[in-house]
């Protein structure tokens, strides 16, 4: 711990976040309520059956889309930073290129280099499923990140964010706030991410299902493109469509910068806004509590750090120390937690 705190450089912060992320995963992956405490960092760091102690040398091949989006950038940075914390891990990264085909080509060269384990965030899980099968058949375990492979034989372990759960968490927060305010039939807006991605649809479904259970519905929904300018544009139009609004959920904190700009430019503040993903900027805004943004639901890129840790354990044929199992589990879905002003301080180090 003291080592982490002694240095506030970017890399250390990332490492800190990664360590907390891994800790949160190891000790709290079943809990949806508990905020991470320093104890969880400690668990990942030193205790836990000596899993952190150097072991067999493991080569981890890594591939994630070379996107220009903050969240994906954080995925790659986290993976690199986490790999660097292990003296027994060699990290081989290949650029994923522009699309699924390019990523498949890059990954084939990776198979040729015979890494111990491959960690990848596929452009599209369905399109890269066959690659997973190929690598597994070649005896290289695949740890899939975030975008599910439909075929269970295509991966050794899958670690994913909870897209449906994000929608549920956002809706739950809004429902609670509306009850507190005594709004019986609220006007709710939604600014989604890229509509052609399945994850966007899943998020929206979780949101509308949960709202429906409480008797609420989405009055207007606009799909942006995970970018600030598209967020600003769609939000400005949504605000025109709903001259009065009680709450809005924006799927992604990166585009949320643009959404907040549109809200300020329109001079509107009669509603509450909930974000998504948990960027550092968003958590700081929530802490400052001077905008409509009152909460964000997590979808943390720390999952990349966890994936590297798990890949290392798989390579070393170890299990997760806190579980009884001798091996790493097949599938892990992170919980989507709600960050508010009250608990923001514990999450700020996880912000990307």
């Amino acid at each position, binding site marked *: 711990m003291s080592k982490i705190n002694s240095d506030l450089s970017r890399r250390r912060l990332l490492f800190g976040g990664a360590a907390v992320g891994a800790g949160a995963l190891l000790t709290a992956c079943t809990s949806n309520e508990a905020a991470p405490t320093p104890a969880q960092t400690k668990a990942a760091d030193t205790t836990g059956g000596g899993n952190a102690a150097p072991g067999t040398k493991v080569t981890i091949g890594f591939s994630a889309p070379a996107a*220009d989006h903050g969240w994906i950038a954080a995925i790659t940075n986290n993976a690199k930073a986490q790999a660097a914390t292990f003296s027994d891990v060699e990290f081989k990264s290949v650029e994923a290129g522009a699309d699924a085909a390019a990523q498949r080509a890059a990954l084939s060269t990776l198979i040729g280099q015979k890494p111990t384990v491959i960690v990848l965030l596929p452009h599209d899980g369905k399109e890269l499923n066959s690659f997973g099968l190929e690598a597994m058949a070649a005896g290289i375990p695949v740890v899939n990140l975030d975008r599910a492979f439909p075929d269970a034989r295509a991966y050794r372990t899958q670690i994913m964010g909870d897209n449906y759960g994000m929608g549920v968490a956002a809706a739950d927060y809004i429902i609670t706030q509306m009850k507190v305010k005594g709004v019986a039939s609220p006007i709710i807006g939604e600014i989604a991410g890229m509509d052609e991605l399945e994850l966007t649809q899943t998020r929206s479904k979780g949101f509308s299902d949960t709202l429906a259970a409480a008797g609420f519905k989405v009055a207007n929904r606009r799909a942006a493109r995970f970018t600030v300018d598209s967020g600003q544009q769609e939000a400005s139009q949504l605000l025109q469509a709903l001259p009065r609004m009680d709450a809005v959920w924006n799927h992604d904190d990166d585009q949320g910068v643009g959404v907040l700009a549109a809200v300020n430019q329109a001079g509107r503040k009669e509603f509450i806004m909930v974000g998504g993903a948990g960027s550092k900027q968003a958590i700081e805004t929530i802490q400052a509590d001077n905008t409509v943004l009152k909460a964000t639901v997590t979808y943390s890129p720390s999952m990349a750090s966890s994936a590297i840790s798990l890949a290392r354990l798989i390579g070393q044929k170890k299990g997760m120390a806190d579980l009884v199992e001798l091996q790493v589990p097949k599938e892990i879905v992170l919980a989507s937690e709600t960050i508010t002003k009250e608990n923001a301080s514990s999450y700020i180090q996880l912000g990307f």
Partner: protein
Amino acid sequence: MPGGRKRSWAGESGESVTRNLVLVGVLIALIVIGAITQPELYGNSTWVWTNILSILQLASVVGVVTVGMTFVIIGGGIDLSVGAIVALAGVWCTTLATQSYGAAGMIFTAIVVGVAVGLINGVLISYGRLVPFIATLAMLVSARGLAAAISGKQTQISSNTFINSIASSKLFGVPWLVYILAAVAVAGWILLNRTTFGRRTVAVGGNPEAARLAGINVKRHTMLLYGLSGLCCGIAAIMLTSQATSAQAAMGNLYELDAIAAAIIGGTLLSGGRGTIVGSILGVLIFATITNLFAINGLSTEAQNMVKGGIIVAAVLVQQFRFKSLTRFFARN
């Protein structure tokens, strides 16, 4: 199209007035559809006013890019890199180092980057003899790559209050962005219709060989046209950065398509030699109004894109139809 070249400059504008009146009609029709589908919203005059401003703001950034694009297309070229130039200029002007020089430094940087990248396109096309499509396609890829590298793929928040206030400040109740669009459009109109530069642009786009024989330095002129497009992108980058209070390598995504589509709907001939600034701005306004119309009715963006595509096809079909009848007319005489 042998007859197409015969028409005089004045004749062109006479025809374009008719075309622009048709576009104004389309715009009015869209507004009427809005009023019919959302009578409650349109019944509120305050809302109608803010909605008009919202549409104008939505059109402002793409509008500025479209003015530059119109010049390039009239001059016989195409610029696929405008969106990427907007992103690169925006990202460059929001790096911490640039931000430390204040608003003037940011504006200067964005414009210099825009013009410089535009001129690189121009040099590659004029002197390197690259096809505009290829040169600007290459620039599209590399400018975004550079923008991603400079920004470290992160969203760069602008902490400059002046830059951030451009989009939110108003003069006589109208946002500044709208004035900027108006200023660029008027400047573009004057440049195209009242200066030698404009006449040369039409000449170069209409028939480069004839223009060369007439003593126009076609290569230099073509290069300058791409520089002009880059300048517009630099201005647009500042506007977009102000609107989003930040810049990101992915911003300005697909602006090239929006700008080209707006110019074509506005009557600019894709093969060069003909086009008007007024038409292009009307094209941008039609797109913005459609987006607004779909948003206030809660319709999906997919449906909106399909309608946009349909409108582009319809506009080009109308143009072709016109040309067919023109060719027939000239063949008969």
